[in-house]
């Protein structure tokens, strides 16, 4: 193994562009997560009631209602037809995520994301095995199961266990023992299954993924011909299978990452020393040539880092 392949993920990008630029989307994402959480905490902590409620449902400036469309869907499946306010809120949220990418919720808003990112960071630090990796379609089974239980029991079933609302509501309204669900997710991701919760099981993320199937904002491997197979993008990507079709595409294939699993987190843009990726829109049909051939001699060592 050469010294080069032992470099930590993103090291080349840091050397090339500097630490700040090699972490810009990560920093921006953390800032956004903190921003959205702070909006909700301004009221209970400082008495500034710009936003009331939590991620399940909220009211901003006493005029803008927002509702989690997945929770409302469970409610409807559970045979309660909601009032117009909640429906409008869900439509606003639904349309927004359908445009910017459904799983933007996961990487830019969801309070569990820092938890599972933390678990993954520690997972890598400890050099642990990837553990149980559920099948790609497991998440859809779970989504279906949640809706079925909602219908059978006539309740918003996922909200009895949802670690997202447990954590978010807990921070805003009082935690109780809800932290146990958050710790459980952390431990699960750390010891049982790498990137397991957000990447394979969480039905909220699955729902938002489906919502954003045709989303406009997409990441594209526009400079894929410059790729030197360092595999850093695969190593940082929480849904690494989304990269392959775009990055390894032939001349005629689209360089756009079109999988609904992509969370638009932008980490691949951060860590790429060759500046392969960039944010664009799904109608961007600039022709992008595929790679000519492998430029690196030992891709296998990089792949082991990712696999």
């Amino acid at each position: 193994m050469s010294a080069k392949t032992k470099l930590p993920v993103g090291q080349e990008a840091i050397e090339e562009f500097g630490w700040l630029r090699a972490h810009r989307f990560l920093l921006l994402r953390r800032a956004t997560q903190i921003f959205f959480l702070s909006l909700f905490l301004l009221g209970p902590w400082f008495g500034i009631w710009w936003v009331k409620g939590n991620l399940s449902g909220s009211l901003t400036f006493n005029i803008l209602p927002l509702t989690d469309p997945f929770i409302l869907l469970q409610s409807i499946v559970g045979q309660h037809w909601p009032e117009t306010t909640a429906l409008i809120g869900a439509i606003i949220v639904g349309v927004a995520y359908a445009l910017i990418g459904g799983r933007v919720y996961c990487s830019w808003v969801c309070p569990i994301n820092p938890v599972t990112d933390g678990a993954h960071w520690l997972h890598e630090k400890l050099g642990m095995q990837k553990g149980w990796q559920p099948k790609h379609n497991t998440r859809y089974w779970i989504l279906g199961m949640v809706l079925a239980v909602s219908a059978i029991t006539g309740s918003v079933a996922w909200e009895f266990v949802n670690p997202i609302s447990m954590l978010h509501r807990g921070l805003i309204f009082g935690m109780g023992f809800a932290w146990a669900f958050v710790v459980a997710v952390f431990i699960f991701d750390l010891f049982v299954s790498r990137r397991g919760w957000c990447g394979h099981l969480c039905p909220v993320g699955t729902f938002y993924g489906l919502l954003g199937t045709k989303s406009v904002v997409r990441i594209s491997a526009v400079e894929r011909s410059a790729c030197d197979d360092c595999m850093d993008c695969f190593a940082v990507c929480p849904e690494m299978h989304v990269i392959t079709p775009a990055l390894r595409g032939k001349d005629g294939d689209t360089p756009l990452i079109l999988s609904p699993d992509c969370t638009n987190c932008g980490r691949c843009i951060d860590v790429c020393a060759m500046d392969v990726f960039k944010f664009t829109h799904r109608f961007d049909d600039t022709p992008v040539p595929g790679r000519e051939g492998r430029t690196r001699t030992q891709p296998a060592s990089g792949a082991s880092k990712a696999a």
Partner: protein
Amino acid sequence: MSATKRKPSSMDRRRFLQDSARAAAGCTVAGMFLAQFATDARALPPQAIRPPGALDEKEFLAACIRCGLCVRDCPYDTLVLAELGYDGAATGTPFFTARDVPCEMCEDIPCVAACPTGALDKELTNIDDADMGLAVLIDEEKCLNALGLRCDVCYRVCPVIDEAITLERRHNERSGHHAIFMPTVHSDKCTGCGKCEKSCVLPGQSAIKILPRRVAMAEAADHYKLGWEDPNPMVDDIIDLPDRLPGPGTDNLVAPGGYTPDATGIPDANMDGGFSPSFSFPTAGGSN
């Protein structure tokens, strides 16, 4: 990335069926636990009172998204969201504990107005129609009024004073010459706001408590006719019978021959239906 690159078309049927069976079985087990959670949560503890206008518990759990907007708009900080492990209500759903902070029965009902989903029913426009529960004087051994003292606090704080709680006077058997002013709740007026429970002067638990109506109320037995409220309804609705007044043929001892308002004498033994008593009435002026 995954080492194998499968195409669905090349995936053999056996493999597909096996994977599907595994996923379905796993989801069934997980779903059973989830359903268990969801149905267990309906067992709302009696001391956890839902906000005004709350749907029945089962419907409520389908409707409430646990956003807490009702909590935020409650001006008296009565409502709280249930915390896992501390409060018995389903996690994140709104409730209040009357002994801590009762409902102040705001006229504009801001909690109902705030609810985006209708878990708190917008049909409730008059707070006096609210039905959060029913006050029950649950410990007559400790209630000061029931002991014959004059506390009256629950009666005085009631927002529907003299209608939801009245003081019913009865004889004090213990002293023999005092009265007991018994706080008596009337279910058609009580809203379950809990101000009586909150203000009960006893230390610790209150002698009067808000209970869910499902717990507090019995079901009336329809096959018993309350004659004083509903005189002979079964026959009168069907055919019109002549009302049978006391008269000949009855055992009217005072006036065996029929109704006579001023009848004071001994019944006439010769009258139809009469009889010959072996004694005499004192007022008849007979042998004395």
